């Protein structure tokens, strides 16, 4: 039984801001299905009352003094932008 359908893969692709051809959807569905199937071995383990670990260090909220420091120069920041105008990043129209 397949664990993930082509429709689900299309939905996930949309969430991930990726687009695929029908052929690629086919391939990704098969591969993701296999990987998810493999991952389901974790269900063999009873993890009731086991705390999740998000990272291993015993560090919580690291704070610093709220002191303003100079940021990066605007021209530098825009240097790698594919498109910019008047000191701003330029994107295609957002409103219809």
């Amino acid at each position: 039984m397949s664990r993930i359908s082509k429709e689900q893969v299309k939905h996930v692709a949309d969430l991930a801001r990726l687009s695929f051809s029908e052929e690629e959807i086919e391939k990704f569905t098969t591969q993701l299905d296999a990987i998810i199937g493999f991952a389901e071995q974790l269900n063999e383990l009873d993890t009731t009352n086991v705390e999740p670990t998000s990272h291993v260090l015993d560090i919580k909220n690291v704070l610093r003094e709220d002191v303003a420091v100079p940021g990066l120069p605007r021209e530098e920041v825009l240097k790698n932008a594919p498109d910019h105008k008047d000191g701003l990043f330029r994107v295609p129209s957002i409103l219809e």
Partner: protein
Amino acid sequence: MSLFDHKMRDLHELLQKKEVSVSDLVDESFKRISEVEGKVQAFLTLDEENARNKAKQLDEKLAGGDSTGILFGMPIGIKDNIVTKGVRTTCASKILENFDPIYDATVMQKLHNAETVMIGKLNMDEFAMGGSTETSHYQRTYNPWNLDYVPGGSSGGSAAAVAAGEVPFTLGSDTGGSIRQPAAYCGVVGLKPTYGRVSRFGLVAFASSLDQIGPITRNVEDNAYLLQAISGVDPYDSTSANLPVPNYVEQLTGDVKGLRIAVPKEYLGEGVQASVRNAILEALKVLEKLGATWEEVSLPHSKYGVATYYLLASSEASSNLARFDGIRYGYRAQGAENLIDLYKKTRSEGFGDEVKRRIMLGTFALSSGYYDAYYKKAQQVRTLIKQDFDKVFEKYDVILGPTAPTPAFKIGAQIDDPLTMYANDLLTIPVNLAGVPGISVPCGFDNGLPIGLQIIGKHFDEATVYRVAHAFEQATDYHKQKPQL
């Protein structure tokens, strides 16, 4: 005889005595690169002009009689996911084809302060996702021991360049084995530090709770010197640990008498090739002769490491890689109709298949309705894996096993089979999940391909890991062997 057959300490002395100049070291690097790079293809970018200018400056400083640190004038190569101001940084991805960083990673800042000379940027799997350096958008890298084989990955360029003698020292990054596995495949020394030992500021993030930068070198002492230089707390990385950095080299005493070694039965079991298992058993004999003792233990949740890792690392990656949208930097697709279309086209054209696969897996695992079943479940299993290590370290000083279940595999052999590829990281992944340090040192050969011994330590106990690795290295001569290119 290459200048790079000398260890760092000897090169340092030669510089002090004016028998060798920094320019000589940099020349040696570019000479070797011109001889073998056509075969190995370890570098994505060479920074020759800057390197030669820097060498001249440093030579003047040396002539002026200034006292210099151990890393002064040392040529170094950097994995291409560590940002280098003014030097193209691609992560081996099309999406960062022309990315020219406007700041330096903290490790680069530290290397500049130590007055090293950067030779160039090294090939890797795209965004460090892979175990063979085959997912690089730009080129393959070939294993210097046998050009039909992969160098490992994702830091394949960093390991191959050291093995081929192009540079004596490199930095790599390790999320699930990406320093140790290529070090094993290429017969060099590679350390993944404790999570938090080295600042991640300026390391292009893959999986933030697992990533660490670490050194790849020809011997353990050089590795310790390099780690010393790049370690420490950093205000720009709030997960860097505010702990003193010990003098690692001072502790390379060669003494392992009374050391208690744990050997997990899972690390010599199913899936581990006989030649690898035998090499590890031989290594244990060497350490026994030096006065250490070993016992078999169990890390019962090891076998769940790979599945746990792929869920967690991919989830973190799907979030981290959301920043590549074609707006602020990097590749932008043409002909998009609106903003969403621009994101989709840019990302679909800019990322390779393995990166897309992991973004998809991660997005799925984090998506509504699946979060608890996959992401949270994997975080819980991560706790169990970490507890396995904690328990063993109550009674033992280090854990020993192979770095990888097999030596290097042939180019193209696994690239279409993600699950087989993932299984190569079986023995390195649990170390990242637990956040402890691990090193790979050469411990044998199978058909001319190197085998790596993995030594794993307690949190922030790189000193013991290095001491054991160094004692083993001094008692054997695997690290002295060089590939014929």
